[in-house]
């Protein structure tokens, strides 16, 4: 029988775990490889802005977006690898005897995804600062796209952890990553492309709805991961229901407004 631990101690454990896992996630080979792609994308943008005249973010900023999208996918693989550590090292039974149980470890791992997200935000802020210094205009919609790349890291990190909870095989997440890379929406715009994770919408308002959509997905993935680790049902249900509400609302708005039958298509 496990001793009951006060809630304040659990939150302390979660913060400690998040610190440890967050630091580990920053030096994980998959995250470092993703960081390499993000730097390649940013480097191509910087080179273009230094060597060409009249560079705009709309023309050259896509390399930055693609680099950080690959970073998000590799963060998912890294998070999945970390979440499967107990199973890989066969320490599940040993860790189940600890006072703070599996839900605390899952919340710690989910919170640890803030570390890669903060690094992503800092890098993107650096690129945006460079662009501003070179006189390249970053408007409201472009700023929201940069914010989306940061939220992507959280969403995909949570997805990696949720997959590890329900499909504990190291082969599943790489397949999901491959699917994200290979099955990108076609050149011909269709309204369903608005709910793809790496889409750039040409309206600030819709781009904000896309950010909300990604946040909702993150809440759903976190709830799915926690549901597996026998966390307290009401809190898991609450975050899941909130996530589903946000995703449903934003998806309806995106699907009806991004590429309507009559009017301009706002898919980037």
């Amino acid at each position, binding site marked *: 029988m496990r001793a009951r631990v006060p809630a304040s101690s659990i939150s302390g454990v979660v913060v400690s775990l998040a610190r440890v896992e967050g630091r580990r996630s920053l030096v994980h080979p*998959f995250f470092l*490889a993703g960081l390499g*792609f993000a730097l*390649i994308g940013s480097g191509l943008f910087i080179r273009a802005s230094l060597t060409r005249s009249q560079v705009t973010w709309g023309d050259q900023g896509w390399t930055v977006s693609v680099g950080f999208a*690959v970073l998000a*996918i*590799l963060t998912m*693989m890294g998070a999945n*690898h970390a979440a499967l550590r107990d199973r*890989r090292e066969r320490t599940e039974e040993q860790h189940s005897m600890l006072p703070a149980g599996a839900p605390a470890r899952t919340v710690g791992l989910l919170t640890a995804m803030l570390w890669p997200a903060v690094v992503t935000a800092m890098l993107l802020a650096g690129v945006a600062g460079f662009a501003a210094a070179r006189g390249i205009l970053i408007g409201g919609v472009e700023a929201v796209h940069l914010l989306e790349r940061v939220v992507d890291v959280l969403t995909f990190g949570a997805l990696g952890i949720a997959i590890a909870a329900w499909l504990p*095989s*190291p*082969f*599943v997440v*790489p*397949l999901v*990553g*491959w699917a994200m*890379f*290979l*099955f990108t929406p076609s050149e011909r715009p269709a309204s369903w492309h608005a709910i793809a994770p790496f889409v750039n919408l040409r309206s600030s308002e819709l781009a904000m709805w896309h950010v909300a959509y990604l946040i909702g997905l993150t809440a759903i993935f976190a709830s799915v991961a926690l549901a597996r680790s026998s966390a307290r049902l009401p809190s898991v249900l609450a975050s899941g229901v909130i996530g589903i509400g946000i995703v449903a609302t934003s998806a309806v708005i995106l699907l009806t407004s991004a590429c309507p039958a009559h009017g301009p298509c706002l898919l980037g």
Partner: protein
Amino acid sequence: MSPRVRAGAVRRFAAHGAGYAAHSVPWFPPLLAGLVSTLVVAARHGHEAAAPLEAVAIALACGAGFAFDDPAFQVLAASPTPLWRRRLLRLLVVMPPTVLLWLLLLRWQGTASSQETLALAAQFAGLVGLSLGVAGVASRSSSRGVGGIAVAPTLFVALILSTTLPPRWRPLPLGDIPGGWLPIYLRWTAAAVIGALISLLSSRDPATSVRSRLARRVRVPSFSRTLRA
């Protein structure tokens, strides 16, 4: 030992070893890869062949990479069967169904020309070769004898790195590149050969490595000197 007796011993070993390998291979990744590949072709049937069959080749190659995963490798390291032979048995168990499924899916999807078929075959061979190369090195360097986990992320990074280069210089081309079919055949075949060589090199038996042989040569005379003294 006469050739007939030796052939009989080899047959018995292959039958017994293949049975052991079939039991110890982690089948979930190859089976999942097969299922996903079938679903991809079913979903994209009737469209152009290249994209779905590229996805099929990647999935099946990544699944086949788990063939070398052997958590008992440290126990078996002391057995008379060398590492390359144990790995060969595992490949003999995993590769035939993988290749058969690929051929069936290729036939089901259909291709526009024989050149496209050849290019897709070269690509499949290249991806499988690279997958086995990565799996071989990763399994050898892993303390637990599991290297399949490294295959899909490594191929992912390698193929995206290749895609960031201009099409003319892509070593692992996905889709068309300038120069027609020949560069595609050559590059993927080269990838297959390099991957297979890496896999072979990583399958040398650790106990008979050059380093350990040198160490034995150095150690034995000094030991005999000690005995004489």
